């Protein structure tokens, strides 16, 4: 979380003397956002591509996609990125995998941001015992290893039905089926990722709360709601944005990791992690099964990280560019 620490030190809105360059002039932002845009386009257009017949169906198993020994084909003219062990088109699967990664990544980021901002705000604004308890709770969550926690949570999602009501009462409306899918996945990842955000926000709220204009507003009799909505929230928004973008990168990485461990979105849905997991058995004979989805993961995570890095620089130009 060096991002927020950097923002914190600079006293962001107080340096009107330093002119900001235009957002798009920052090359990191430019590179990151165009990559993200490209990925969003790929995710959006992939199903249309299948309909328009210039992309193959990602889950259709084709005999033309296997060689005489039933092994996957390497990248070539017919299959641009080769085929997998079921004779499915890797290019189409990777493009469709963008949908899962982006959806889960962004949704998990939203979950983590909502929890993190809420808890960080409560702890930072009210302080005292509330702060102590909430921060211990955050620490407890931080001490649990994220990937292991996520795997354990995902392991629980095996399709069983949980009855939230006493056995004698027929309130089946409350029944909850725990099954693996995109929704449970982004909830899990969000629940694992929030503590970092919570800590950063708490620090920011503490810093903003101590500034003169907040003190003045309070002295004039502004209510807590007004202080939070009008003064504190707008001032911590840049931090939230930077951390959220980087959180998205981490969530996508975690989603791929869970897929790789075999507890992501269940097959035959094309996800990058599960493609790697299935492909690694053929690694020696068909390395493209590992290379292609892996490259897609790196590209996506890199895109969000570059964007985050660039936004951080843009919000705080004194830090990096001064010589």
């Amino acid at each position, binding site marked *: 979380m060096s991002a927020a620490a950097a923002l914190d030190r600079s006293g962001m809105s107080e340096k009107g003397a330093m002119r900001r360059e235009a957002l798009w002039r920052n090359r990191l932002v430019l590179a990151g956002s165009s990559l993200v845009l490209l990925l969003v386009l790929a995710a959006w257009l992939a199903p249309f591509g299948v309909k328009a017949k210039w992309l193959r169906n990602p889950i259709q198993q084709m005999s033309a996609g296997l060689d005489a020994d039933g092994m996957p084909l390497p990248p070539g003219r017919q299959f641009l990125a080769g085929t997998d062990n079921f004779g499915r088109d890797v290019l189409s699967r990777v493009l469709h995998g963008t949908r899962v990664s982006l959806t889960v990544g962004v949704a998990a980021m939203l979950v983590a941001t909502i929890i993190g901002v809420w808890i960080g705000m409560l702890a930072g604004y009210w302080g005292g015992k509330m702060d102590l308890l909430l921060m211990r709770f955050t*620490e*407890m969550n*931080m001490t*649990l*290893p994220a990937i292991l926690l996520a795997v354990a949570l995902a392991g629980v999602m095996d399709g069983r039905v949980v009855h939230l009501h006493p056995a004698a009462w027929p309130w089946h409306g409350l029944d909850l089926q725990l099954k693996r899918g995109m929704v449970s996945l982004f909830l899990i990842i969000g629940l694992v990722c929030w503590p970092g955000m919570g800590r950063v926000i708490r620090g920011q709220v503490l810093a903003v709360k101590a500034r003169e204009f907040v003190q003045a507003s309070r002295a004039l009799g502004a209510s807590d709601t007004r202080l939070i909505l009008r003064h504190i929230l707008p001032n911590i928004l840049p931090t939230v944005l930077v951390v959220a973008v980087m959180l998205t990168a981490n969530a996508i990485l975690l989603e791929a990791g869970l897929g790789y*461990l075999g507890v992501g979105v269940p097959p035959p849905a094309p996800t990058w992690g599960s493609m*790697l997991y299935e492909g690694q058995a053929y690694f020696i004979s068909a390395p493209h099964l*590992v290379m292609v989805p892996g490259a897609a993961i*790196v590209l996506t995570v*890199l895109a969000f990280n570059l964007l985050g890095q660039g936004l951080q620089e843009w919000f705080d130009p004194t830090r990096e560019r001064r010589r």
Partner: protein
Amino acid sequence: MTGRFLFRLFWSALTLLGTALLTFLLVNVVPGDVARVIAGPKASPQVLEEIRQRYHLHEPLWKRAGYHFRQLAAGDLGHSFVTDQPVAEAIRARLPTTAALTVTAVVMWMLLAVPLGVSTAKYRGSWFDRSTLVLATLSLSLPAFWLARLLQYWLAYKLGWFPVAGFLGFAHLLLPAATLALLYVGYYARLIHAHMIEVLDSPYIRSARAQGTPERVVLFKHGLRNALIPVVTILGMDVAGLLGGVMFTENVFALPGIGTLAVQSVFNLDVPVIMGTVLFSAFLVVAANLVVDLLYRWIDPRLR
């Protein structure tokens, strides 16, 4: 100082207790047929019944929590459902591998990150600094399991420079450690860079330069020493995290460490081992937090 220490110790213990409770609830609150997991799909009803008796699976949750915490208080992490080996023993047997891997990796990435961080801070804004920033971001974006497979295929299988997998000696640690080092070096290079910049802008560095101190001494003796203090905090936490299990890298290279143990336990639904490894890793992180906090106060007199 003593009061501060006792206060920290109290909260560390409480954090651990909370973590233990959280883990217990997480693993136990959703009912699954654990007896079936232990005995396998073809077990007879008698065997299932015996297992339920042995592990108190009949009892209500709060009673099981009672047994669990009494056990923990006695330092007993329970026995594996699958191998019946005591969990503490399994962790102890695998700790040296993970520790050796962690130490090798830390040495590797710090040897790379320190020169990178210092030189990019010295020449900040230069093309060298900017391209290091992009490369560091790339290092942050690599998935461990993919990088491990890539290096394994290319450097071990194709070129034959390293053993492919398994653990027989130090040579088997080099490639896994290099994988970890590549994953961490970017973050540390930027971290050292950021703290170096802050230090180099401070008045005492200006005085040192004005006095005609050689640049080498300014950078490394006055600059780096102070810049490394905050880095130690994060390094401590990361080392603790790695010691708690390097899941992907250990798995790909088939190293018999705690990460492999953790992954296997998840796949086998081996509840005591899952809880044991999670608790162990949580213990390390809490302990590292405590040690780093005290160390910090000792290194930096301003905080006393």
